[in-house]
């Protein structure tokens, strides 16, 4: 991990070497991606004699799978920027997928999105109006969604299938580019515009930095919190709908594998876990890092056990690097 070179004591650095604190995690994460690619390629070269990881087809395929995570992480970033978190993502994904496939027809995708939005709005209300810590409220909402879905499906994978449009969005390609990747790109452009070019984006950063100051500046803080959670829920709903299209149906626990990686991607990308700081580019790079880490681990046939350990370690390591730094400079 000698890539984590720039220490955050920028004040004592000569100007040329000074890297803004916001961009430093992005550079570190990007460097780490190169390390992953190098290690993975070295492995495949020595075992298979080919540089599988570097072929464009393979990379596109990986990014297609990664786009589901990317969409979830984009939504998650909004609430983390506020200084909150959304732990209801796993069963929001599953619920959106199950409802979308259950309804079917042209309404499938709108229903999936609406389920996500509704869950998100409920989360936002609990956090903004009741001021229950988001950690706990969204954990409870996740349990309720799981309960509702288990009751709805009888605990089995639902028999209903994803609509053709859902499948097309998830697996089809246009000019060799997966449609799912285009959906992720659209969401990403939306995020960049939202965070940098709208008042809502500025308000989100302001609330994450100092909610009292934002409130006293006349920012409608409650509305913004509800909106951000709503968008986060909707992103999870979209991911669930696409995921159902990808595997042609919904199934129990389909969202479980997305919560921790989504938080990890956001945090690794330099968004401060207590809110207020972070760029969307970082989240994008964080997602790519995790997707490639996953690819390399599966090429190496790493069991689930190793993945869990590596995820946990990477989050802690990255947080130790950025988290400590920000505390000192504050």
């Amino acid at each position, binding site marked *: 991990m000698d890539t984590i070179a720039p220490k955050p004591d920028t004040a004592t650095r000569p100007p040329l070497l000074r890297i803004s604190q916001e961009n430093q995690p992005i550079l570190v994460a990007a460097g780490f991606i190169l390390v992953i690619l190098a290690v993975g390629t070295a492995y495949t070269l020595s075992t298979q004699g080919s540089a599988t990881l570097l072929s464009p087809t393979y990379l596109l395929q990986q990014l297609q799978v990664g786009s589901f995570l990317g969409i979830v992480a984009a939504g998650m970033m909004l609430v983390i920027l506020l200084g909150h978190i959304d732990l209801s993502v796993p069963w929001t994904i599953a619920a959106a997928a199950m409802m979308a496939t259950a309804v079917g027809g042209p309404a499938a995708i709108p229903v999936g999105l609406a389920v996500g939005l509704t869950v998100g709005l409920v989360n936002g209300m609990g956090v903004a109006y009741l001021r229950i810590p988001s950690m706990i409220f969204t954990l409870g909402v996740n349990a309720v969604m799981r309960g509702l879905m288990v009751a709805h499906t009888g605990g089995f994978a639902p028999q209903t299938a994803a609509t053709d449009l859902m499948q097309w969005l998830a697996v089809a390609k246009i000019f060799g580019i997966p449609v799912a990747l285009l959906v992720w790109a659209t969401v990403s452009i939306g995020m960049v*515009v939202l965070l940098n*070019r*709208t*008042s*809502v984006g*500025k*308000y989100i*950063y*302001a609330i994450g*930095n*100092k909610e*009292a*100051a*934002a*409130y*006293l*500046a*006349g*920012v*409608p803080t409650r509305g913004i919190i509800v909106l951000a959670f709503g968008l986060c829920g909707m992103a999870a709903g979209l991911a669930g709908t696409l995921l159902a299209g990808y595997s042609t149906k919904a199934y129990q626990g389909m969202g479980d594998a997305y919560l921790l990686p989504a938080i990890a991607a956001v945090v690794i990308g330099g968004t401060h876990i207590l809110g*207020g*700081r972070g760029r969307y580019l970082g989240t994008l790079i964080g997602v790519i890092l995790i997707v490639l880490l996953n690819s390399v681990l599966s090429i190496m046939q790493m069991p689930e056990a190793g993945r869990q350990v590596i995820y946990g370690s990477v989050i802690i390591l990255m947080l130790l690097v950025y988290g400590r730094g920000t505390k000192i400079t*504050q």
Partner: protein
Amino acid sequence: MTGTPPSEQAAPPHVVLTGVSKHYGGVTALDNVDFSCDLGSIHAVLGENGAGKSTLIKIMAGVVQPDEGSMTLAGKPQAFRHPAAANAAGIVCIFQELSLVPDLSVADNICIADPPRRFGLIDSRAQRRHAEEMLARIGCEDVNPLTRVRDLALSRRQMVEIAKAISKDPTVLILDEATSALTAADVDRVFEILRRLRDSGISILTISHRMHEIDAVADTCSVFRNGRHIETFKQGGRSEKEIVQMMIGREISAHFPPKPPPKVGEPLLEVRSLGWENRLKEIDLLIGRGEIVGLGGLDGQGQKELLIGLFGVLKGMRGEVRVDGKSVSLTSPNAAKKAGIDMALIPEDRKTEGLMLPMSIADNLTIASLEQFSRGPLVDPAALDKAVEDGIDRMQIKIGSSGDAVSTLSGGNQQKVVIAKWLMTEPRIILLNDPTRGIDVGTKQEIYLLLRALAEEGAGILFYSTDYEELIGCCDRVAVMYDGRVVSELEGEAITEENIISSALNLAEAAQ
């Protein structure tokens, strides 16, 4: 100079400070001060905000170290590096912010530093006995040591704080405005305790703003002004008028823009019998177009609540607020800044309430007025940049780049950012909560000029300041608050420091 204790006529002073000075940056907090206090005596320290009282006791309690000068305790020279050293030597200080843990019991709190133990575990019976003993010593037998501190009234907490302090067996007990949050009846109780402690031979040093309270309890008084020790006299040695004179006695140092002749402007903001909890009581106030109304009084008499209440922060307010003669409902700052009301608040603490410190200067400047620069859902970056530039120019904020974090600016420039942020919303009613606290003289002057200019453009300004000079120099009218009420309104020639201070100390009522 020092008063002699009633019992030990010939005893030398217990604590003696000689030639003590303390500077913070360029500001002199204490200037070559000699000071002493005796065992078995209650010694009051008086002075305006910034007179150096707090620095004096912080030095005695080991919180800060003096730049020059020396201190002796019972004849031995002492230099405390930290509060624990002062505690060990017998000097214990009770600061304004309480140090009690709210969810622990009274007994737990009194014994928190070093609880009695048996087999390594806290012996709750012994702890309770000890707590009862301490409470009995100060005459608070009626406080049950098992009660949680959270469940106690504020006055009782203050007494528990005293019990906690004396369980350390001090010879010098210092109280920094320990009565400022208490009601008159509770103050009497605390005084009763202080007298008992004095009679048991402890030296007590107390800081208070309330003149009649000092009359009631102190044996000796010292007046401080501008970091200097002006005079020490025995209780009754000086009249109230003389004391007030001693506290003021300085020349006006700042220059204020000339006040226009008094005129009857149209009423802009009318407040009618406004109340909130027990902090604001029946407040009537009128601010006309083009008028600067000052808000005076001691700290914590409801001025902050009045300002944030008008700005929609407080829930459950009683009474009526009218803007342009129309009754308005102020439910949030967002509602208060909207068209039709056009209110702005420069909050008390710019670091936690006024600014998002890690964010850029530009982001901070525009956060309150983003809607104006938006086309549909999108912000127009060109309009935004121009507004930022205009704001920086107008307030003459000294910056490197508008993209720098606002935390990199000096205090004065930070305050200018807060003000510029609100000027961008083009407010008609401007509420200011002590906007010049902790900023340099030059910036202060710019703020005075700006306020007068805004008033001349037709804005109505409500200006709370802890600095009486500002109120006198800047305001067309001054409302002085005491205990949640407006106790007097001074106008024109009547706005003098003497009048403000006597209203602030509520001398009229105390005399009755």
